[in-house]
């Protein structure tokens, strides 16, 4: 019922948009801003009304909740075939948080149906482990961040499933994870790495990926509250369990559990997050190597108060959460 209502409201929202645009134009409202550019010219036409609605790039007015599509595709051995490129929303395409896309389309889960608790940190771990991502840096994502951080990055996750292994690829942070699904167990003493050592197994129609030995410099971003400023570090005891399923062709469901007795009072488990299959056949992979980066220098020149506010914002709960989940 709520979902239906949301969709109805979304349709109303889009239907009203041109009307609102025209109404605003015709009302002859005064100019805002007063910026330096105003001397560069005037816009008398803006107050004369009867202008056609402004075309906005991106076809956001066509965005809708993607239907489930055909049944779950399966591989020759009978398991679900998870292969495909997915976006972290209900639209089957990359969205942009700034556009006014209704939450039933934008979000990955409905908090009224599947509420998600935030991680509960041990009081003695807060100071050591709750630190935002250094401003302007482009660290590797690590596990599970390369997937969870898409809550605010909005980028694609591509899964390539072949016999005996599954590849998990994300555009940014540019990440390649190879997960064996041939029945092997974890190594007795795995080397620490950014993505950790993963092994996968099927539990019915759910692929369960178990990961240990994740480099302790990697942060958990959007594991719980979304956004870089709410990031948290982990100990060597961290254990990540991810569950993937594909209830129909167009939908991938993802749930992550993080255990870390040194940092968390109890294991954290996310709500099931929906990802939708990319619908545009021309939607190609984009290179996103984050190196041309002037921001660390910008950060150096900022005042100390701003820096301190940023550093503590995740711990005191004042950091904003990004759009895409609630």
């Amino acid at each position, binding site marked *: 019922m709520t979902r239906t*209502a949301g969709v109805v409201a979304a349709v*109303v929202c889009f239907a009203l948009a041109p009307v609102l645009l025209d*109404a*605003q134009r015709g009302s002859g409202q005064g100019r805002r801003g007063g910026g330096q550019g105003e001397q560069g010219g005037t*816009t008398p036409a803006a107050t004369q009304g009867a202008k056609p609605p*402004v075309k906005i790039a991106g076809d956001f007015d066509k965005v809708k909740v993607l239907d489930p599509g055909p049944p779950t595709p399966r591989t020759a051995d009978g398991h679900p075939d998870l292969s495909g490129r997915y976006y972290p929303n209900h639209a089957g395409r990359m969205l942009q948080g700034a556009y006014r896309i209704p939450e039933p389309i934008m979000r990955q889960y409905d908090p009224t149906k599947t509420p998600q608790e935030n991680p509960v940190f041990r009081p003695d771990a807060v100071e050591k482990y709750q630190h935002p991502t250094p401003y302007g840096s482009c660290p590797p994502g690590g596990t599970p961040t390369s997937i969870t951080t898409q809550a605010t*990055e909005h980028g694609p996750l591509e899964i390539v499933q072949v016999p005996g292994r599954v590849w998990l690829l994300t555009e940014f942070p540019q990440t390649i994870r190879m997960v064996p699904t041939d029945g092997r167990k974890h190594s007795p003493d795995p080397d620490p790495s950014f993505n950790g050592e993963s092994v996968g197994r099927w539990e019915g129609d759910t692929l369960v990926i178990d990961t240990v030995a994740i480099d302790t410099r990697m942060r958990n971003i959007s594991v719980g509250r979304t956004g870089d400023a709410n990031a948290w570090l982990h100990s060597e005891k961290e254990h990540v369990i991810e569950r993937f399923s594909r209830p129909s062709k167009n939908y991938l469901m993802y749930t992550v559990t993080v255990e870390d007795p040194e940092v968390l009072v109890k294991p954290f488990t996310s709500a099931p997050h929906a990802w939708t299959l990319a619908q545009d056949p021309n939607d190609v992979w984009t290179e996103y190597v984050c190196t041309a980066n002037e921001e660390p220098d910008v950060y150096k020149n900022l005042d100390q108060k701003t820096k301190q506010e940023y550093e503590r914002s995740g711990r005191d709960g004042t950091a904003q959460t*990004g759009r895409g989940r609630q």
Partner: protein
Amino acid sequence: MKIRLAGAAVAAGCLLGFAGTASAHHGFNVEFDGTKCMDLKGTLTGVIWENPHAYLQMDVKDAAGSTVNWRLEMITPNALKRNGTTRQDFTANMGKEMNARACPAKVDGDSRGAAEYIKLSDGILRIVGQIPERGMTPEKLNF
């Protein structure tokens, strides 16, 4: 009744506009001042298509009549491209008039900022950044 309530809520959302993170590489407020956003009108002089952010450059005349070259940050090329704004769109409109709604940087804020909306000479409104201004919906723009 539920439908009406939800409809009203979303309609209110339409009117207020949803501020939100757009492929956020960083927190907006650390680097930019979302309370001093302004209109810029001038000429498109450049585009820098790189990660983690694309930038546009535009010449704008200041109050004294001098030309200031502004550098405006946008979101990532991958998000711009998938949301209808390509490098080629900038190339095609280079040297021509454009409008921007932008928020100044906290450092060098007289010529550096983050763009919310732009309109190049092709007349298409483009959302190219985060919208820190609460309620700054497309219909409220002056261009």
